[in-house]
């Protein structure tokens, strides 16, 4: 106990090492979760800086601050960092690592040492990516997709960047197999599959996507490296190869990767809604199954990224159709969330605000996705800012807003302290307004034909580009407010107690922060998780 009455919990159990070594060599899932949290948000900050620089360049037509080749490096690095170093590891490695074992009543993950190894792979990959900036013949300029044949021919430092993505893929695979094994083997007594919190279901589905899809990315990237080093020729028409094969392989991974980003975010949303509406989740099984459905169908839709790349008509129609099918389980979830809130006693704190923003922004992202998925319109907006707007709405508006919601929701459990609610709401407001100012104009710009990945544009596009750039400044302010509030509250916030929100899942049963090994005694589960009607019991307990 210290002066504020907060137990130090697992922070006081560093193991045999001290200082930073008690973190970077720890096998405690909570410490690894926090390590990841800090690492991924550090890279996020770098990625945001590249984003802001690009927006600054685009405030006026012509060359404003950088020329074409620097701009190409900017969007490549922005994309690589945001995708491979931030959202793909994202929620599972940080919040998932910390809370999944707590929520199933386990003391740790199945393979704690592999868990640590995966963090080391992650850091290695991150450093390689940074190294590619400063060595060789200039930073990579291929875009985060590394499309052949350009990625094979360009003189820039592609090998290093691709190796970085490869190592990050290995990290992702290790995390995936660790989580699957953990969920199969380490649930507390009585924690049957359909008594698991839905966040655990979403992490589980994500883990399957990780191990099913990432190896395909692995071999694809490996081939790019081999191609550059030895010139084997698989993607080179001059040697009989075919660059389209690269795109097929790449999107076989990268479409499912969208679900790696979004499924855990949906899981976080599903945790927050019942707690802040004090109602049980509507359609527990429908949500659990829709996670698994998204995980399995998502594997078969990659072709919609290639409508303009030369595909047979039948293939195009088929891909277009499956793409629409994926919208169904997503729609099921949105319906269930809204139904869960209906007639609840809703408490609109920061976590719920982020969730509401998520539902709104993600729906816009989803609807514009349908426009892209539809064959006829795709050809009109392919390669324009419409696409840029769409995926920021899905990934940033979806995955990242949910991530922020989860960060606030679980903050008291991680630190034992409460964040400042007023400042959190202010940060939310800035982010929400800034976000729409930043990205909504892109839909219009794209519809009017402004191409993406270009440092310059026609003068007629300028007004909306200025709006967008100002939006990026508002977003940046919101981010600073958000993190300043959390960092300050981690030291100065009021004691939160074990269960400030009245949650009914297991992590709220143990103290805040949780002790080493999570529970004094492993709890026995007799009910499903989200029960708020006292006459029906108390779910996994309300300590």
């Amino acid at each position: 106990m210290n002066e504020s009455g907060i137990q130090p919990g697992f922070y006081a159990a560093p193991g045999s090492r001290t200082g930073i070594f008690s973190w970077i060599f720890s096998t405690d899932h909570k410490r690894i979760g926090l390590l990841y949290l800090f690492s991924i948000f550090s890279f996020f900050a770098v990625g945001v800086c590249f984003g802001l620089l690009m927006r600054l360049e685009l405030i006026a037509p012509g060359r404003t601050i950088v020329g074409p080749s620097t701009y190409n490096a900017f969007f490549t690095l922005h994309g690589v960092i945001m995708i491979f170093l931030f959202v793909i590891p994202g929620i599972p490695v940080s919040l998932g690592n910390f809370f999944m074992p707590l929520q199933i009543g386990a003391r740790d993950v199945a393979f704690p040492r592999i868990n640590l190894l995966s963090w080391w792979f992650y850091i290695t990959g991150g450093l390689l990516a940074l190294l590619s900036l400063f060595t060789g013949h200039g930073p990579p300029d291929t875009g985060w997709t590394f499309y052949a044949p350009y990625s094979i021919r360009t003189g820039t430092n592609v090998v290093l960047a691709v190796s970085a993505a490869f190592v990050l893929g290995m990290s992702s695979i290790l995390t995936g197999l660790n989580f699957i094994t953990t969920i199969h083997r380490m649930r507390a007594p009585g924690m049957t599959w359909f008594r698991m919190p839905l966040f655990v279901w979403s992490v589980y589905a994500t883990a399957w996507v990780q191990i099913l899809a990432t190896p395909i990315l692995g071999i694809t990237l490996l081939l790019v490296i081999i191609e550059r080093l030895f010139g084997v020729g698989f993607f080179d028409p001059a040697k009989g190869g075919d660059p389209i094969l690269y795109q097929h392989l790449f999107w076989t991974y990268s479409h499912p990767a969208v679900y790696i980003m979004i499924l855990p975010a949906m899981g976080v949303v599903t945790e927050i809604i019942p707690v802040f509406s004090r109602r049980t989740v509507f359609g527990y099984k429908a949500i659990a199954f829709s996670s698994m459905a998204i995980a399995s169908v998502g594997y078969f839709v990659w072709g919609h990224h290639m409508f303009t790349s030369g595909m047979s008509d039948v293939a195009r129609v088929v891909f277009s159709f499956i793409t629409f099918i994926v919208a169904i389980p997503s729609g099921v979830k949105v319906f269930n969330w809204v139904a869960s809130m209906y007639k609840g006693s809703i408490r609109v704190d920061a976590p719920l605000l982020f969730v509401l923003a998520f539902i709104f922004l993600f729906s816009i992202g989803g609807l514009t996705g349908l426009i892209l998925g539809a064959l006829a319109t795709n050809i009109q907006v392919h390669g324009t800012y419409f696409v840029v707007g769409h995926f920021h709405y899905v990934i940033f508006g979806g995955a990242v807003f949910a991530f922020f919601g989860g960060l606030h929701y679980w903050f008291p459990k991680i630190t034992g302290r409460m964040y400042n609610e007023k400042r959190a709401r202010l940060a939310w407001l800035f982010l929400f307004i800034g976000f729409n100012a930043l990205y909504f104009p892109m839909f219009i710009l794209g519809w009017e034909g402004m191409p993406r990945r270009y440092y310059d544009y026609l003068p007629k596009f300028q007004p909306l580009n200025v709006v967008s750039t100002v939006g990026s400044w508002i977003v940046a302010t919101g981010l600073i407010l958000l993190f300043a509030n959390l960092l300050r509250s981690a030291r100065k916030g009021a004691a939160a107690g074990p269960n400030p929100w009245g949650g009914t899942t297991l992590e709220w049963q143990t103290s805040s922060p949780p002790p080493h090994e999570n529970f004094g005694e492993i709890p026995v589960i007799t009910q499903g998780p989200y029960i708020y009607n006292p006459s029906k019991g108390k779910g996994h307990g309300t300590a």
Partner: protein
Amino acid sequence: MERHRDDIGARTGMWLFLFTEILLFGGLFMLYSMFRMQHGAEFHKAAENLNRIAGTTNTLVLITSSLAMALSIAAIRRGRKAASVALQATTVLLGCVFLLIKYFEWSTEIGRGIYPNSPALLKLDHGEILFYGLYFVMTGLHGLHVIIGISVISFMLVSTAKGNITSTDHVRLENSGLYWHFVDTIWVYLFPLFYLVT
């Protein structure tokens, strides 16, 4: 803190891992089938130049090594440590023989001027360029897995000799065995695809 032990969990993890390895090679097998569909005749022609005797020998070598591995696990289950160590050593040795034969094969091809991007290769038809490209990439990646397998089993060998792997605690050895069988199985598919397509 005593170590949490869960043999079923360890096996589950290993199977999941092998599954990802299969997908990794799966991408290459997919490329192989697409290119072969386009260039069937040239694949046949190119395959005639590979040394079928070396390929067959290597298949036998790997299958035997897999058998030795399986027997070494059976031995440790019955507590026969010395036999298990000897059998693991056999596996490692046969793995090295495999690599040696592979080394001579690659040297022969390279000696003929056939290697990725070589002038002699680029003069051949597209199908043959792709065939040799696949040959070097797939057997190379497989060779890498053989090397990893040899290292892991050598490590197990030492652990067994030291008495860390016993009749009651041998899931690590079993998992290494699984890995080795996987390496063997991949070869069993590579062999006909490259040596027997003529």
